[in-house]
């Protein structure tokens, strides 16, 4: 469904992604794990045309999207939930969700069907429903993350790009959010690319995973196999070296 071939992305002089290739099949949850600065966020931003790649190819449903602008990519059905949530803090919860459907308003889609989708988001995240008129900046971290996901869903994406949804959240909240993420796939068939530092939680719900290190993909495997991989366990799952090598 989505195929990235050998992309190279730069921040000024910094070569952030080096010949990165990956693919997503329809209905898959794929996770991208790696340390800080490995280039996980850059992969998503290359896809969303926030930092367009210099070379390489990005194919979505068979046609290239590499030179499209950010709004065109959302229009085609790829929505990103950015790192650090980036909700519109001074706006209300409902306004944030409405803006998620901005392109649908532009296409003169009826208010009724957009309203229905807002209610659907409230159904997924009942805590947001209680706070629908509240200013988004006053929500808790977990609620802001829910709102950021809800806002992206309002565009009815085929592929959802999630950037570190667990960042800075309590374990229980992370669990809730990941539950919703797998529900999105099972109930709506949304394809998901999940970037995480919390590799354990991400691999638990993912089908496949890629491991990124200093701008390169160094491993690609089924999530269950990555969980068993000794090197991944040592580097990303926090298991002690001794425990693995010297038993």
């Amino acid at each position, binding site marked *: 469904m989505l195929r990235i071939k050998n992309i190279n992305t730069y921040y000024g002089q910094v070569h952030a992604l080096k010949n990165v290739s990956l693919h997503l099949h329809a209905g898959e949850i794929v996770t991208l794990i790696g340390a800080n600065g490995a280039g996980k966020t850059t992969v998503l931003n290359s896809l969303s045309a926030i930092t367009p790649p210099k070379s390489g190819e990005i194919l979505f449903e068979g046609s290239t999207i590499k030179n499209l*602008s950010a709004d065109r990519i959302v229009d085609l059905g790829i929505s990103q939930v950015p790192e650090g949530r980036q909700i519109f803090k001074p706006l209300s919860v409902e306004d944030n969700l409405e803006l998620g459907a901005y392109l649908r308003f532009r296409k003169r889609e009826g208010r009724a069907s957009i309203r229905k989708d807002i209610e659907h988001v409230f159904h997924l995240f009942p805590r947001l429903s209680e706070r629908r008129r509240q200013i988004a900046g006053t929500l808790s971290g977990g609620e802001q993350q829910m709102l950021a996901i809800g806002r992206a869903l309002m565009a009815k994406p085929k592929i959802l790009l999630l950037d570190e949804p667990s960042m800075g959240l309590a374990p229980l909240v992370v669990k809730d959010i990941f539950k919703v993420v797998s529900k999105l796939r099972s109930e709506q068939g949304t394809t998901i690319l999940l970037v995480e530092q919390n590799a354990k939680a991400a691999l638990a719900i993912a089908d496949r995973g890629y491991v990124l290190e200093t701008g390169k993909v160094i491993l690609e495997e089924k999530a269950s196999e990555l969980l068993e991989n000794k090197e991944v366990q040592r580097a990303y799952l926090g298991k002690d070296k001794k425990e693995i090598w010297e038993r």
Partner: protein
Amino acid sequence: MDIGSLAANGFSWYMMQHQSAQGDSTSALTLSSVKAVSMNFSHQIVQYLLSGFSTGAIYSLIGLGFAIIYNSTGIINFAQGEFVMLGGMLTYFFLTVAGIPLFASIILSVIIATATGVIFERLAIRPLRNATPLSLVIITIGGSIFIRGIAMLVWGKDTHAIPMFSGTEPLFLAGATILPQHLWIFGITILIIVINKLYFYYSISGKAMRACSYNRNAASLVGIDVRRMVLFSFAISSAMGSVAGMIAAPLTMTSYDVGVMLGLKGFCAAIIGGMSSGIGTVLGGLILGVLESLGAGLLSSGYKDAIAFIILLLILFIRPRGIFRKAETERV
């Protein structure tokens, strides 16, 4: 170049008009001398307040233009004053030179000034997308000199008057004299502020513009074309500026360089309001207008412009986020 001297002349002419009109009205009241003096003083205050509100309303409109562009692009558009000038000069041109009826002249002038704003954004701002805000600000200064130069070549250096929208017969209000033009200024300003509010708070494209100002990155991730919103903000600001220029012109006169001083005053209003594109800047403009008018009336009209700039400096030194903006509290 003698910056803004013509604008200042315009203002003092305007004050003179008031003083003489007021002289007439008080002389009509033949009361005892002591009472006349005290009446005179309170009437004077009312008069100053009224004229302060009307210049303040103009400053508010100009300031809103600054704030809208600042919020969508992060730059201060120092060409804003030129749209104010264009509003006045174009109306003068269509109405007096071309002899087109008032209403049609107004519409035409707003359209042309707005188109100028849009072209300015397209030619001078958009091609430099990766420029720093500072170089963009300098470009707006260049743009303002350019537009002013063109205006001088087309219309010359003379100061022009345009007739009041509906006669010069003064009205009397709480002992003060008020011209019908003041009512036009108040009415149109209120109308624009209301439309502005409705647009930014209730329409999806207004909300999208606010979204751009809060977080451009996130705005483009929900599919908002940020460049389009920047263009909109230039269109809205230049339209608002030109309206300010044309409703003020019958009182203050207009010439090719009124934009310099009016632009700075509008900037001052926006700074007092903390660059809010809402009520903060409107109050900022009114405060500035009233203080100027009281200062000119009670101290000396020579201090009129100084007052605005003293306020500007004080705000920038003491409370750069503006008087009305609360400290932002954020949760992450």
